[in-house]
Protein backbone atom coordinates (compact mmCIF):
# COMPACT_ATOMS: atom_id res chain seq x y z
CA UNK A 1 0.00 0.00 0.00
CA UNK A 2 1.66 3.22 -1.09
CA UNK A 3 1.28 6.42 0.88
CA UNK A 4 -1.34 9.01 0.04
CA UNK A 5 1.24 11.60 -0.99
CA UNK A 6 2.97 9.28 -3.39
CA UNK A 7 -0.30 8.05 -4.82
CA UNK A 8 -1.65 11.54 -5.48
CA UNK A 9 1.58 12.84 -7.00
CA UNK A 10 2.02 9.79 -9.22
CA UNK A 11 -1.55 10.21 -10.42
CA UNK A 12 -0.92 13.84 -11.29
CA UNK A 13 2.41 13.01 -12.88
CA UNK A 14 0.58 10.90 -15.45
CA UNK A 15 -2.06 13.59 -15.91
CA UNK A 16 0.46 16.28 -16.84
CA UNK A 17 1.34 15.02 -20.35
CA UNK A 18 -2.31 14.68 -21.31
CA UNK A 19 -2.94 18.23 -20.25
CA UNK A 20 0.06 19.38 -22.24
CA UNK A 21 -1.31 17.65 -25.35
CA UNK A 22 -4.64 19.39 -24.88
CA UNK A 23 -2.92 22.72 -24.42
CA UNK A 24 -0.88 22.31 -27.55
CA UNK A 25 -4.05 21.60 -29.51
CA UNK A 26 -5.68 24.73 -28.09
CA UNK A 27 -2.59 26.76 -28.91
CA UNK A 28 -2.65 25.45 -32.48
CA UNK A 29 -6.20 26.70 -32.80
CA UNK A 30 -5.32 29.99 -31.16
CA UNK A 31 -2.43 30.61 -33.50
CA UNK A 32 -4.32 29.38 -36.57
CA UNK A 33 -7.81 30.69 -35.80
CA UNK A 34 -9.14 32.12 -39.02
CA UNK A 35 -11.23 34.82 -37.33
CA UNK A 36 -10.72 37.04 -34.32
CA UNK A 37 -13.44 35.38 -32.21
CA UNK A 38 -11.80 32.03 -32.87
CA UNK A 39 -8.52 33.20 -31.40
CA UNK A 40 -10.19 34.70 -28.39
CA UNK A 41 -12.28 31.60 -27.84
CA UNK A 42 -9.21 29.40 -27.99
CA UNK A 43 -7.34 31.62 -25.52
CA UNK A 44 -10.41 31.52 -23.36
CA UNK A 45 -10.71 27.76 -23.26
CA UNK A 46 -6.96 27.41 -22.92
CA UNK A 47 -6.85 29.73 -19.96
CA UNK A 48 -9.76 28.24 -18.04
CA UNK A 49 -8.18 24.82 -18.45
CA UNK A 50 -4.84 26.27 -17.50
CA UNK A 51 -6.41 27.60 -14.31
CA UNK A 52 -7.62 24.11 -13.44
CA UNK A 53 -4.24 22.68 -14.36
CA UNK A 54 -2.44 25.19 -12.14
CA UNK A 55 -4.55 24.11 -9.20
CA UNK A 56 -3.76 20.47 -9.87
CA UNK A 57 -0.08 21.26 -10.31
CA UNK A 58 0.02 23.05 -6.99
CA UNK A 59 -0.98 19.78 -5.36
CA UNK A 60 1.81 18.15 -7.31
CA UNK A 61 4.33 20.73 -6.12
CA UNK A 62 3.02 20.41 -2.55
CA UNK A 63 2.75 24.20 -2.47
CA UNK A 64 -0.88 25.07 -1.75
CA UNK A 65 -0.12 28.78 -1.83
CA UNK A 66 0.29 28.65 -5.59
CA UNK A 67 -3.49 28.46 -5.94
CA UNK A 68 -4.22 32.19 -5.93
CA UNK A 69 -2.79 32.39 -9.44
CA UNK A 70 -5.68 30.38 -10.87
CA UNK A 71 -8.42 32.75 -9.86
CA UNK A 72 -6.60 35.78 -11.19
CA UNK A 73 -6.12 34.01 -14.49
CA UNK A 74 -9.83 33.22 -14.74
CA UNK A 75 -10.87 36.76 -13.83
CA UNK A 76 -8.67 38.52 -16.30
CA UNK A 77 -9.41 36.23 -19.19
CA UNK A 78 -13.07 36.99 -18.69
CA UNK A 79 -12.25 40.67 -19.05
CA UNK A 80 -10.26 39.90 -22.20
CA UNK A 81 -13.40 38.31 -23.65
CA UNK A 82 -15.47 41.25 -22.65
CA UNK A 83 -13.39 43.88 -24.26
CA UNK A 84 -12.77 42.02 -27.44
CA UNK A 85 -16.53 41.60 -27.67
CA UNK A 86 -16.99 45.28 -26.98
CA UNK A 87 -14.36 46.11 -29.55
CA UNK A 88 -16.25 44.18 -32.20
CA UNK A 89 -19.64 45.58 -31.26
CA UNK A 90 -19.29 49.17 -30.19
CA UNK A 91 -18.12 52.36 -31.80
CA UNK A 92 -16.00 53.31 -28.79
CA UNK A 93 -15.01 51.03 -25.99
CA UNK A 94 -16.28 53.41 -23.35
CA UNK A 95 -19.82 53.50 -24.66
Amino acid at each position, binding site marked *: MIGLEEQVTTYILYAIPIYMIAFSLYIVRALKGPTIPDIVLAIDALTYDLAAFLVILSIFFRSP*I*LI*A*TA*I*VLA*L*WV*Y*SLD*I*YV*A*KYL*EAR*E*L*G*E
Partner: protein
Amino acid sequence: MRTTKENLVIAISMALFVLLLSLVLAVGGLGYILPPPQVRLIASWYLRVTFNPFERLFSAMAPEGVTSIVWDFRGLDTLFETTVFYLAIIGSIAIARGVIGGHKEVDEKKLGLSLIVKSVTRISLGMILAVAASIALHGHLTPGGGFQGGASAAVAPLILLVVFSRYFIEKHGITKNTMLILRSIGLFGIGMTAFIVVIIALASGAPAFVFQNQPKTIAPTGMPFEIGGALTGGTLWFFNVFEMVAVAAGFTIIFLLLAIPEEEYKKILRLGGGEHE
Protein backbone atom coordinates in the same frame (compact mmCIF):
# COMPACT_ATOMS: atom_id res chain seq x y z
CA MET B 1 8.08 50.19 -48.09
CA ARG B 2 9.64 46.86 -47.33
CA THR B 3 7.99 43.66 -48.32
CA THR B 4 7.10 40.97 -45.87
CA LYS B 5 9.81 38.77 -47.30
CA GLU B 6 12.53 41.29 -46.62
CA ASN B 7 11.18 41.82 -43.14
CA LEU B 8 11.35 38.11 -42.60
CA VAL B 9 14.96 37.95 -43.72
CA ILE B 10 15.92 40.79 -41.42
CA ALA B 11 14.09 39.24 -38.52
CA ILE B 12 15.64 35.85 -39.03
CA SER B 13 19.14 37.20 -39.40
CA MET B 14 18.70 39.31 -36.31
CA ALA B 15 17.36 36.34 -34.39
CA LEU B 16 20.29 34.22 -35.53
CA PHE B 17 22.74 36.87 -34.45
CA VAL B 18 21.16 37.14 -31.05
CA LEU B 19 21.05 33.38 -30.81
CA LEU B 20 24.76 33.04 -31.45
CA LEU B 21 25.50 35.78 -28.97
CA SER B 22 23.27 34.11 -26.47
CA LEU B 23 24.98 30.76 -26.76
CA VAL B 24 28.15 32.31 -25.44
CA LEU B 25 26.54 34.49 -22.87
CA ALA B 26 23.85 32.22 -21.52
CA VAL B 27 26.43 29.69 -20.52
CA GLY B 28 29.02 32.15 -19.35
CA GLY B 29 26.96 34.79 -17.70
CA LEU B 30 24.24 32.77 -16.13
CA GLY B 31 26.54 30.16 -14.69
CA TYR B 32 27.95 27.05 -16.32
CA ILE B 33 25.35 24.66 -14.98
CA LEU B 34 21.76 25.38 -15.91
CA PRO B 35 19.82 25.61 -13.67
CA PRO B 36 22.23 26.00 -10.76
CA PRO B 37 22.00 23.39 -8.03
CA GLN B 38 21.71 25.93 -5.24
CA VAL B 39 20.39 29.46 -4.87
CA ARG B 40 22.87 32.26 -4.36
CA LEU B 41 24.25 33.04 -0.94
CA ILE B 42 22.38 36.31 -0.64
CA ALA B 43 19.14 34.51 -1.49
CA SER B 44 19.59 32.02 1.28
CA TRP B 45 20.12 34.99 3.60
CA TYR B 46 16.85 36.49 2.49
CA LEU B 47 15.09 33.19 2.98
CA ARG B 48 16.55 32.71 6.44
CA VAL B 49 15.88 36.25 7.55
CA THR B 50 12.39 36.78 6.18
CA PHE B 51 10.68 35.05 9.10
CA ASN B 52 12.96 34.15 11.94
CA PRO B 53 11.57 34.41 15.48
CA PHE B 54 14.95 33.33 16.85
CA GLU B 55 16.67 36.43 15.49
CA ARG B 56 14.19 39.11 16.44
CA LEU B 57 16.68 41.90 15.72
CA PHE B 58 17.46 40.73 12.20
CA SER B 59 14.24 39.60 10.59
CA ALA B 60 11.42 41.05 8.55
CA MET B 61 8.95 38.82 10.41
CA ALA B 62 6.82 38.07 7.38
CA PRO B 63 6.78 34.54 5.94
CA GLU B 64 6.37 35.81 2.38
CA GLY B 65 9.87 36.25 1.02
CA VAL B 66 8.96 38.38 -1.97
CA THR B 67 6.68 40.77 -0.12
CA SER B 68 9.23 41.27 2.61
CA ILE B 69 11.87 42.10 0.03
CA VAL B 70 9.51 44.33 -1.86
CA TRP B 71 8.38 46.39 1.09
CA ASP B 72 11.04 45.91 3.73
CA PHE B 73 14.50 45.06 2.41
CA ARG B 74 14.10 47.03 -0.78
CA GLY B 75 11.20 49.26 0.14
CA LEU B 76 12.83 52.25 -1.47
CA ASP B 77 12.66 50.61 -4.89
CA THR B 78 9.00 49.93 -4.47
CA LEU B 79 8.23 53.43 -3.30
CA PHE B 80 9.83 54.82 -6.42
CA GLU B 81 8.24 52.17 -8.60
CA THR B 82 4.95 53.52 -7.30
CA THR B 83 6.23 56.98 -8.07
CA VAL B 84 6.91 55.97 -11.65
CA PHE B 85 3.38 54.65 -12.03
CA TYR B 86 2.04 57.76 -10.37
CA LEU B 87 4.02 60.08 -12.61
CA ALA B 88 2.91 58.16 -15.70
CA ILE B 89 -0.69 58.73 -14.69
CA ILE B 90 0.00 62.37 -13.94
CA GLY B 91 1.59 62.70 -17.36
CA SER B 92 -1.46 61.10 -18.96
CA ILE B 93 -3.79 63.39 -17.06
CA ALA B 94 -1.64 66.30 -18.16
CA ILE B 95 -2.14 65.26 -21.78
CA ALA B 96 -5.86 65.00 -21.20
CA ARG B 97 -6.07 68.11 -19.06
CA GLY B 98 -9.19 70.13 -19.47
CA VAL B 99 -11.07 67.25 -21.07
CA ILE B 100 -14.12 66.70 -18.97
CA GLY B 101 -16.08 64.23 -21.00
CA GLY B 102 -19.42 65.66 -20.06
CA HIS B 103 -22.29 63.88 -18.39
CA LYS B 104 -24.40 63.48 -21.47
CA GLU B 105 -27.96 62.33 -21.04
CA VAL B 106 -27.89 58.98 -22.77
CA ASP B 107 -30.05 55.91 -22.81
CA GLU B 108 -28.00 53.54 -20.73
CA LYS B 109 -30.06 50.52 -21.69
CA LYS B 110 -28.91 50.87 -25.28
CA LEU B 111 -25.25 51.18 -24.39
CA GLY B 112 -22.97 48.39 -23.34
CA LEU B 113 -23.17 44.67 -23.85
CA SER B 114 -26.14 42.35 -23.51
CA LEU B 115 -28.33 41.97 -20.46
CA ILE B 116 -26.84 38.60 -19.57
CA VAL B 117 -23.32 39.93 -19.36
CA LYS B 118 -24.57 42.86 -17.33
CA SER B 119 -26.28 40.62 -14.77
CA VAL B 120 -23.29 38.30 -14.46
CA THR B 121 -21.01 41.26 -13.99
CA ARG B 122 -23.25 42.60 -11.27
CA ILE B 123 -23.27 39.34 -9.33
CA SER B 124 -19.57 38.71 -9.65
CA LEU B 125 -18.60 42.24 -8.63
CA GLY B 126 -18.68 41.58 -4.91
CA MET B 127 -16.83 38.31 -5.29
CA ILE B 128 -14.08 39.89 -7.36
CA LEU B 129 -13.55 42.61 -4.80
CA ALA B 130 -13.57 40.08 -1.96
CA VAL B 131 -10.93 37.97 -3.69
CA ALA B 132 -8.83 41.04 -4.41
CA ALA B 133 -9.04 42.18 -0.82
CA SER B 134 -8.08 38.72 0.34
CA ILE B 135 -5.04 38.68 -1.94
CA ALA B 136 -3.93 42.07 -0.64
CA LEU B 137 -4.64 41.47 3.03
CA HIS B 138 -2.81 38.15 3.04
CA GLY B 139 0.10 39.60 1.14
CA HIS B 140 2.48 39.09 4.04
CA LEU B 141 1.47 35.43 4.43
CA THR B 142 0.75 34.04 0.98
CA PRO B 143 1.69 35.20 -2.53
CA GLY B 144 0.10 38.48 -3.30
CA GLY B 145 0.25 41.91 -1.87
CA GLY B 146 -0.78 45.43 -2.54
CA PHE B 147 -0.12 45.59 -6.24
CA GLN B 148 -1.54 42.16 -6.94
CA GLY B 149 -4.67 42.89 -4.93
CA GLY B 150 -5.07 46.30 -6.46
CA ALA B 151 -4.68 44.97 -9.97
CA SER B 152 -7.29 42.29 -9.31
CA ALA B 153 -9.64 44.84 -7.76
CA ALA B 154 -9.24 47.00 -10.85
CA VAL B 155 -11.07 44.31 -12.84
CA ALA B 156 -14.28 45.47 -11.19
CA PRO B 157 -14.36 49.07 -12.45
CA LEU B 158 -12.86 47.98 -15.76
CA ILE B 159 -15.56 45.48 -16.59
CA LEU B 160 -18.19 47.87 -15.29
CA LEU B 161 -16.80 50.44 -17.68
CA VAL B 162 -16.75 48.09 -20.63
CA VAL B 163 -19.93 46.14 -19.93
CA PHE B 164 -22.05 49.13 -19.05
CA SER B 165 -20.60 52.46 -20.17
CA ARG B 166 -18.58 55.29 -18.83
CA TYR B 167 -21.74 57.34 -18.25
CA PHE B 168 -23.06 54.60 -16.01
CA ILE B 169 -20.04 54.39 -13.79
CA GLU B 170 -19.60 58.12 -13.57
CA LYS B 171 -23.20 58.38 -12.43
CA HIS B 172 -22.38 55.94 -9.67
CA GLY B 173 -19.53 58.03 -8.35
CA ILE B 174 -16.51 56.48 -10.05
CA THR B 175 -15.11 59.63 -11.58
CA LYS B 176 -11.61 60.81 -12.30
CA ASN B 177 -11.55 63.17 -9.35
CA THR B 178 -12.73 60.67 -6.75
CA MET B 179 -10.20 58.17 -8.03
CA LEU B 180 -7.48 60.81 -7.93
CA ILE B 181 -8.36 61.56 -4.31
CA LEU B 182 -8.32 57.86 -3.44
CA ARG B 183 -5.03 57.46 -5.20
CA SER B 184 -3.46 60.39 -3.43
CA ILE B 185 -4.68 59.09 -0.09
CA GLY B 186 -3.22 55.68 -0.81
CA LEU B 187 0.10 57.12 -1.89
CA PHE B 188 0.22 59.44 1.07
CA GLY B 189 -0.41 56.42 3.29
CA ILE B 190 2.48 54.57 1.64
CA GLY B 191 4.77 57.54 2.18
CA MET B 192 3.74 57.96 5.79
CA THR B 193 4.16 54.25 6.50
CA ALA B 194 7.71 54.55 5.20
CA PHE B 195 8.38 57.29 7.72
CA ILE B 196 6.27 56.01 10.61
CA VAL B 197 9.05 54.31 12.53
CA VAL B 198 11.25 57.35 12.17
CA ILE B 199 8.47 59.52 13.53
CA ILE B 200 7.84 57.19 16.46
CA ALA B 201 11.54 56.97 17.19
CA LEU B 202 11.87 60.74 17.05
CA ALA B 203 9.57 61.02 20.05
CA SER B 204 11.81 58.80 22.14
CA GLY B 205 15.04 60.14 20.71
CA ALA B 206 16.21 56.75 19.50
CA PRO B 207 17.86 56.31 16.10
CA ALA B 208 15.71 54.87 13.35
CA PHE B 209 15.85 54.37 9.60
CA VAL B 210 13.44 55.28 6.86
CA PHE B 211 11.57 52.15 5.75
CA GLN B 212 12.42 50.43 9.00
CA ASN B 213 9.97 47.73 9.95
CA GLN B 214 11.23 45.59 12.78
CA PRO B 215 13.66 46.70 15.51
CA LYS B 216 17.35 46.37 14.74
CA THR B 217 20.36 46.19 17.00
CA ILE B 218 21.27 49.81 16.57
CA ALA B 219 17.71 51.10 16.06
CA PRO B 220 15.48 49.51 18.67
CA THR B 221 12.19 51.02 17.54
CA GLY B 222 9.92 48.92 15.37
CA MET B 223 6.38 48.05 14.45
CA PRO B 224 4.66 45.15 16.20
CA PHE B 225 4.78 42.15 13.91
CA GLU B 226 1.68 40.54 15.31
CA ILE B 227 -1.54 41.82 16.79
CA GLY B 228 -3.45 39.44 18.99
CA GLY B 229 -1.56 36.43 17.70
CA ALA B 230 -2.21 37.22 14.05
CA LEU B 231 0.84 38.01 11.97
CA THR B 232 0.75 41.41 10.30
CA GLY B 233 4.38 41.81 9.36
CA GLY B 234 4.61 45.29 10.89
CA THR B 235 4.56 47.94 8.22
CA LEU B 236 3.97 45.41 5.44
CA TRP B 237 0.27 45.22 6.20
CA PHE B 238 -0.16 48.96 5.93
CA PHE B 239 1.89 49.13 2.78
CA ASN B 240 -0.25 46.43 1.21
CA VAL B 241 -3.54 48.08 2.10
CA PHE B 242 -2.51 51.52 0.89
CA GLU B 243 -0.89 50.16 -2.23
CA MET B 244 -4.05 48.26 -3.09
CA VAL B 245 -6.15 51.42 -2.87
CA ALA B 246 -3.62 53.40 -4.86
CA VAL B 247 -3.20 50.82 -7.61
CA ALA B 248 -6.90 50.12 -8.06
CA ALA B 249 -7.63 53.83 -8.25
CA GLY B 250 -4.74 54.39 -10.62
CA PHE B 251 -5.89 51.74 -13.07
CA THR B 252 -9.39 53.14 -12.94
CA ILE B 253 -8.11 56.62 -13.80
CA ILE B 254 -6.28 55.22 -16.81
CA PHE B 255 -9.38 53.52 -18.16
CA LEU B 256 -11.60 56.49 -17.47
CA LEU B 257 -9.21 58.65 -19.45
CA LEU B 258 -9.06 56.14 -22.27
CA ALA B 259 -12.84 55.82 -22.38
CA ILE B 260 -13.49 59.48 -23.03
CA PRO B 261 -14.85 59.75 -26.59
CA GLU B 262 -12.60 61.25 -29.21
CA GLU B 263 -14.96 64.17 -29.88
CA GLU B 264 -14.24 65.58 -26.45
CA TYR B 265 -10.52 65.49 -27.05
CA LYS B 266 -10.95 67.04 -30.47
CA LYS B 267 -12.91 69.88 -28.92
CA ILE B 268 -10.05 70.68 -26.59
CA LEU B 269 -7.55 70.38 -29.41
CA ARG B 270 -9.44 72.87 -31.50
CA LEU B 271 -9.60 75.34 -28.64
CA GLY B 272 -5.89 75.04 -27.99
CA GLY B 273 -4.56 77.68 -25.68
CA GLY B 274 -2.20 77.78 -22.74
CA GLU B 275 0.89 77.13 -24.77
CA HIS B 276 3.61 79.61 -25.21
CA GLU B 277 6.97 79.07 -26.70
